[in-house]
């Protein structure tokens, strides 16, 4: 096959493992790229800010206060970020459960994205914790707050990161040429996928359930007993929109490494995902409308907040939905990309409305994140992209798996059902 030379290497011998790793650790590609020039100063500034955050306390670098305990680092990095990372569970559902084979070429990149997103949002969460050294308490049992939604979310994060690590691990085994381990890890995929989808269902909705007790503090247009359900449904199209958005960028940036399979199927995958996103958004809008009527929310609509709510629901959900549907019908890539961006903005706005903007809408002085909070958020995202790039340039994520691994996978896939059950 015409796989790029850099990955069609033979598996390293025992003695040469060190030299193999040393060679892989060296930077690949140009150092003076636009992204590097922007991201390096941001990450350096982040390091400085974090030094002050840990030596002087959260108040020294954030605008958080007694009225607004959660700011940008939770509202955007964690609550919004996890919704954006929903693509991994949606795509694994489509490929491994519904066996929609046409989406298999992008499954690894999506899992890797989800995995890294969770790792880095967990880091962002650690930065926001006042007493991060106690973060192991809910895990080691000092003590188990079983009635806490956050307890559930924390455990699900941990388990889901593990599940995604296992889902991605065959790529690492292929990179290191570990054939036997590869077989074992691949065998775990279906179990972890099912487990991962279940965990995702619960923690995506769980993030919404975090706000259930903040009832008197959230504007009635955004507070509803159905927040968990709305969070879950919206995480589906948020995840797909992120796959579309990020996929478009990866397609350009890593063009040299793409398998012919990905190149050929790119357009078909895009239109397919756009159609699904549009459908899910319709369901979401329907649920929102039910909630609107059920909660008698029309009494709040003639106000500034009412307009703001309509801007979110109509401008950034209904409109991208139409663009997705029309774009996929007409096979119009630009329209689909626009829809993806609008839909991501809509999700971000919805999560920020609930956690920050419409939170304590009655407060005389409202929390607004300062520059340092924004820089740290950007720094975390930059660091994530660096790691993503490092992995994509080395492991078979967008590029083809080695021939031995592909043969193994084909054997696995063509095994009939019955044997799987009996095994």
């Amino acid at each position, binding site marked *: 096959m015409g796989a790029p030379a850099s990955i069609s290497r033979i598996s390293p011998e025992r003695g040469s493992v060190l030299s193999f790793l040393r060679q892989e650790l060296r930077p690949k590609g140009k150092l003076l790229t636009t992204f590097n020039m922007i991201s390096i100063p941001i990450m350096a500034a982040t390091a400085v800010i974090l030094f002050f955050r840990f030596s002087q*306390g959260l108040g020294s670098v954030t605008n958080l206060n*007694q009225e607004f305990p959660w700011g940008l680092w939770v509202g955007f990095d964690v609550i919004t970020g996890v919704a954006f990372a929903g693509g991994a569970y949606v795509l694994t559902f489509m490929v491994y459960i519904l066996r929609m084979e046409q989406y298999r070429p992008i499954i690894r990149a999506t899992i890797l994205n989800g995995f890294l997103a969770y790792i880095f949002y967990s880091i962002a969460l650690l930065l926001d914790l*006042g007493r*991060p050294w106690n973060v192991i308490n809910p895990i080691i049992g000092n003590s188990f707050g079983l009635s806490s939604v956050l307890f559930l979310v924390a455990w699900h994060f941990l388990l889901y990161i593990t599940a995604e690590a296992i889902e991605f691990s065959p790529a690492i085994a292929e990179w290191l040429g570990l054939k036997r381990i590869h077989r074992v890890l691949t065998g775990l995929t279906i179990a972890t996928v099912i487990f991962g*989808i279940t965990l995702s269902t619960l923690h995506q909705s769980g993030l919404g*359930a975090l706000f259930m007790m903040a009832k008197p*503090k959230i504007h009635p247009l955004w507070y509803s007993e159905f927040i968990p359900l709305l969070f879950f449904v919206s995480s589906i199209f948020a995840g797909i929109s992120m796959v579309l958005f990020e996929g478009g960028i990866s397609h350009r940036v890593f063009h040299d490494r793409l398998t012919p399979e990905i190149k050929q199927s790119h357009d078909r995958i895009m239109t397919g995902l756009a159609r699904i996103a549009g459908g899910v958004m319709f369901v979401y809008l329907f649920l929102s409308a039910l909630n609107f009527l059920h909660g008698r929310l029309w009494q709040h609509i003639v106000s500034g907040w009412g307009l703001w709510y309509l801007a979110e629901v109509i401008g950034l959900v209904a409109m991208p939905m139409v663009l997705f549907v029309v774009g996929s019908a007409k096979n119009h890539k630009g329209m689909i990309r626009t829809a993806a961006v609008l839909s991501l903005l809509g999700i971000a706005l919805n999560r920020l409305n609930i956690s920050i903007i419409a939170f304590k809408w009655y407060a005389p002085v409202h929390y607004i994140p300062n520059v340092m909070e924004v820089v740290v958020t950007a720094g975390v995202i930059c660091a994530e992209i660096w790691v993503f790039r490092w992995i994509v340039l080395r492991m078979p994520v967008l590029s083809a798996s080695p021939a031995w691994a592909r043969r193994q996978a084909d054997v696995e896939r063509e095994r*009939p*059902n*019955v044997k799987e059950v009996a095994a």
Partner: protein
Amino acid sequence: MERREFLKLVGALGATAVAGPERAEASATELEDSYGVLLDVSQCDGCRTCELACAETNGLPEPEYDEDTLDEIVRPTSETQWSVVNCFDTSAGDVYVKKQCMHCSTPACASACLTKALLKTEEGPVIWREDKCMGCRFCMLSCPFDVPKFEYDSANPRIQKCRMCWERQIEGEMPACVEECPSDAMVFGKRSELLEIARERIHQNPGDYVSHIYGEHEAGGTGWLYISPVPFEELGFRTDLGEKAYPEYVRPFLTTVPVVLIMWPAFLLALRQATGPVAEETVDADHTQQMEV
């Protein structure tokens, strides 16, 4: 293989999730027997002796304020001042009210806390425990009274709030603020007894009180109870909090969790089976398939 693993995990995770709401319920049955404080707003002179007593007892800095503007501004409780007396300009003239943690019977903060750093004690006070807290501030987000305060300017921050002098209570003493009050505006005792006293005072002095005990039902009932000569909204109390205990708002979600944990994997596995290629094999294989269905 796969399925057995699932069942084990589902069992473990499902059990924890089910246990949650049950615990909240158990503590709710004990609430009438726990201790609280009844504050008769009409008796308070606004001398602020209680503020000082609180600071001294809990090792907090002496409250600092500008005497001239003191009665015009409403000071919130803070990480260095757990108890604050404010003056409100009401329909019956100036009225002073002391505010602090309400020590809910079924506290939102304690049910929000994932390490039980915040704990509703048997005695009644809701306390915070330093060795457990990870500083996530979910308690602050959840508390309907906005009570827990966080030390934003510390590298080793604590959650700060009134503990109703829990340490004094277990030694048989009453909270410092109650003991020091020169005008006996506060009564310390069992919650059920305090409710009796409150009802009696309202009943025997018609016209002196509004017919409402703040805290009897608010947010599912609180350890601190207030009676007042003026409507509570004039005294800066939120009257839109509802009578439901706040952890109840999460219960529908928490009860769904074990259901999803059990149903989802089974459903997904079945879906995967249904979408798979049909096996063209021997009778033996068909038999196995039937068993599965």
